[in-house]
């Protein structure tokens, strides 16, 4: 990972020097060492880092960056490249204003899992083989990388990029996939409606409506969100009790259905640890079952099954013989 970081810095410096790009969107240290946050850099790249904590998906920042003068260098991990393509499909990014480097990723770290192992006071992170070496104020700690990855990395979409002008990759690619991404969705499906309702009411009752999930989501990129638009009346339909917060997530899941690339950022940033990605995955699973497997963002310009019509389309609820469910 440290080697990749060095190569990225070197290549970015070249691109700045020859005038290909005028800025770079990457990561820098946030409030804490383990909290790497997206940032825009000039040619000096002051503070730029790339390590195991750089989980944030940078593609959404290109919406605004492609409106300003000059070309932006973006660093895309394999899963971020799907969001990048989806945004291109939706005409939200001007491709000519972006130079994309696909960079290596061998899974990103989950600070909560590291904390659970009793590691505190992290100052920096490095990787050695399949171990993560954490330099802390209490000395150096080693943990197995496979035990501290973000949940989404255990069901990675793959280490191949679907977009990028060039790529900076490790010689040995690490596969982190160990679980079926629909495992939990299947569990939820197996519940009775009452159990499921209780599960989601329980999870969503913790929501503080900080809007972090919406703000980080590359699919939630509306110029004006319906929840910020009192004229539409969507925001205050059920504001008499906490149910509205629940509806916020349901409506959001509907709005990104068929467009969500399953990048998992919603759950990663949720300060209340609500497994929001499960709502989206349920939609993805339903779409896969009804219309055939579909991965949003796999290609630029693809037509999602929910915005396309084919004569043999399933009609959920109406035609069980065509695969629709009653």
């Amino acid at each position, binding site marked *: 990972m440290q080697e990749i970081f060095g190569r990225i810095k070197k290549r970015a410096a070249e691109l700045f020097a020859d005038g290909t790009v005028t800025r770079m969107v990457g990561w820098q240290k946030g409030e804490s060492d383990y909290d790497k946050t997206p940032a825009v850099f000039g040619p000096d790249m002051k503070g730029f880092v790339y390590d195991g904590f750089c989980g944030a998906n940078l593609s959404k920042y290109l919406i605004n960056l492609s*409106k300003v003068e000059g070309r932006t260098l973006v660093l895309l991990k394999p899963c971020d490249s799907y969001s990048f393509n989806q945004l291109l*499909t*939706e*005409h*939200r990014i001007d491709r000519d204003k972006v130079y994309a480097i696909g960079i290596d990723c061998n899974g990103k770290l989950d600070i909560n899992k590291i904390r659970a192992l009793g590691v505190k006071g992290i100052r920096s992170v490095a990787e050695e083989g399949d171990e993560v070496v954490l330099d802390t104020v209490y000395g150096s700690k080693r943990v197995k990388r496979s035990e501290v990855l973000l949940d989404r990395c255990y069901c990675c979409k793959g280490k191949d990029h679907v977009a990028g002008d060039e790529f900076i990759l490790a010689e040995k690619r690490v596969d982190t996939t160990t679980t079926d991404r629909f495992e939990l969705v299947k569990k939820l499906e197996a519940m009775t409606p009452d159990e499921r309702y209780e599960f989601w009411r329980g999870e969503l009752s913790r929501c503080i409506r900080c809007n972090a999930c919406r703000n980080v989501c590359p699919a939630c*990129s*509306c*110029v*004006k*969100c*319906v929840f910020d*638009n009192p004229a*539409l*009346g*969507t925001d205050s*339909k059920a504001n008499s009790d906490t149910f509205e917060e629940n509806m916020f997530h349901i409506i959001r899941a509907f*709005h990104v259905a068929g467009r969500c690339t399953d990048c998992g950022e919603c759950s990663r940033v949720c300060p209340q640890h609500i497994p929001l990605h499960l709502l989206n995955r349920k939609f993805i699973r339903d779409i896969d079952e009804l219309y055939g497997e579909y991965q949003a963002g796999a290609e630029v310009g693809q*037509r999602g099954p929910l*915005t*396309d019509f084919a004569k043999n389309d399933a009609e959920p609820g109406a035609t069980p013989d065509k695969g629709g469910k009653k």
Partner: protein
Amino acid sequence: MQRIGVFVCWCGTNIAATVDVKAVAEAARKEPGVVFATDYQYMCSEAGQKLIRDAIAEHKLTGVVICSCSPRMHEATFRKTVEAAGLNPYMLEVANIREQCSWIHKDRTEATEKAVVLARTAIAKVSLNVPLTAGESPVTKRALVIGGGIAGIQSALDIADAGYEVDIVEKQPTIGGKMTQIDKTFPTLDCAACILTPKMVDAAQHEKITIYSYSEVTEVTGFVGAFKARIKRKARFVDETKCTGCGECTSKCPSKKNKNEFNLGLDNRTAIYIPFAQAVPKVAVIDAESCIKKKTGKCGLCQKICGAGAIDYEQKDEYIEREYGAIVVATGYNPIDLAKYDEYAYSQSPDVVTSLELERLMNAAGPTKGTLLRPSDGTHPHTIVFIQCVGSRCDDARGKPYCSKICCMYTAKHAMLIREKYPDTEVHVFYIDVRTPGKNFDEFYRRAVEQYGVDYIKGMVGKVVPHDGKLLVQGSDLIANEQVRIEADMVVLAAAIEPDKSARSIATMLTASIDTNDFFTEAHPKLRPVESPTAGVFLSGVCQGPKDIPETVAQASACAAKVIGLLAKDKLKGNPCVAHVNEEMCNGCSTCEKVCPYGAITYQDKEFRVPGPKRTEIRRVASVNEAVCQGCGACTVACMSGAMDIKGFANKQIFAEVDAICR
């Protein structure tokens, strides 16, 4: 705040017998914004309409709710009423308390309760109505007729006679369609060619009609009054302007063993050919697949012979683009493929023919010069069995569920003509029912039975087995309740008819709807039978449903009347209840464009003012062509940000309606 008036109609006893109309008016009066509410026996009558107009004036109403029948019935009527009283016609809402309430309920209390809710819902909606004005668009005074059969020709002639330009696009080298292949027509037995070919000539000579034969429509864009069509003129390798139709080339062409489509493959034609003597235009065409010159580069005989110098082996497909105000679909039909009906041995014996093939075998211009001879050995058949409903009224996937309508009559015609011409021939007809509703139709059928002695057997044939030069027909006679075995010389199958294969792609091109059998759907099965639901697209002939010739001609003229009605207008008033985009909120994501079935949405880059030092930014935003939009609302539900909305059916209004129901 609006000043709303509510008018509850009794519809005689239709509503008043089940709904307490006075209670509905009473409840409506208590709703916010309502300043007047009343009930009346027939709101749509002149007296009822006067009551509405007077109330608007007296109570200074700004919005009107009529609780009555379905808006499909009288919304237009009441819009005119409120407009006459000085209100914008779109400040009206109709609450359907008849079809959706009184007609489907028995209990008076329940029905009244529901009527009150429906009234409340309409009041909630009308509170948010805004005056709307319909836009106008110009009309191109030219019609496109797709298909040059009798339907297309008749529609074109009628439209052209009214003084409008018409283009007929026909995919075959000649116009005339199926009727050119038919020998005699029921029930008068006049010769099809004698009545059709003069019409073909009329069309060709009409100064307002242009015929594009051997051509296909490949693309249609635009909307009612302003369609744009791309027409592919297939290369016929003969210069249409030079060819005199002398036929010299066809007599010398060495490639002679090509299936003659006009005689349904019952004889052969040359590679360069004129479909038949009366073809319009009477111009030769080269079938590139069988032309020796086109295949090997050697030959060129026709070019040498042609005195007019019309042969051009290098001719290429050409495309022309024209604008039209209206489009007539007259794509016609074909008999179904009988490959799936092998119990009748159609593919096993040449003596099993379809009824259309029999037409050719009996026609003076056909392969046998009009003498009925068996295709296998050229002998005169003595026993002929007709089998009706082959693929029609069929409940399995092989055939069609509908009645093809023309078969009963043409079979009676065939049977009668054969008995007339060859009285020594035995003719048996197996049938399920004989259907003869039409002027002089039943008389015609009875003549076949009573005067000509045709043997009608009620029942179906189970199997036809070719054996020793004969055809063994096994069927059942349901009236005598016995099995019948007939040793026949020929078997004639009344194959079901189906829309031409081009119907589906043309429907897609025109965004016109077709049914499960690929027949074009009419805007209303009874009241708008020659219009497609897509504005500006009209239906002529069998493309809309099975029809015989008189019905086809009648419908073609009806269709022309509708086209003339449209072309006579200089400007069209649109429907103002169409989509519009709030550009400030539009993401430019193209989702609405993808779901729009009418192609009404396009995108453009526009400059917007934004806060900050840069002042403006260029954004890609949707724009709706109001003349094309049909107001279906697909875009509004697909739009994530709520930037798309339908005028007159705004999301806010729908929310208000739902709230009113749930209150």
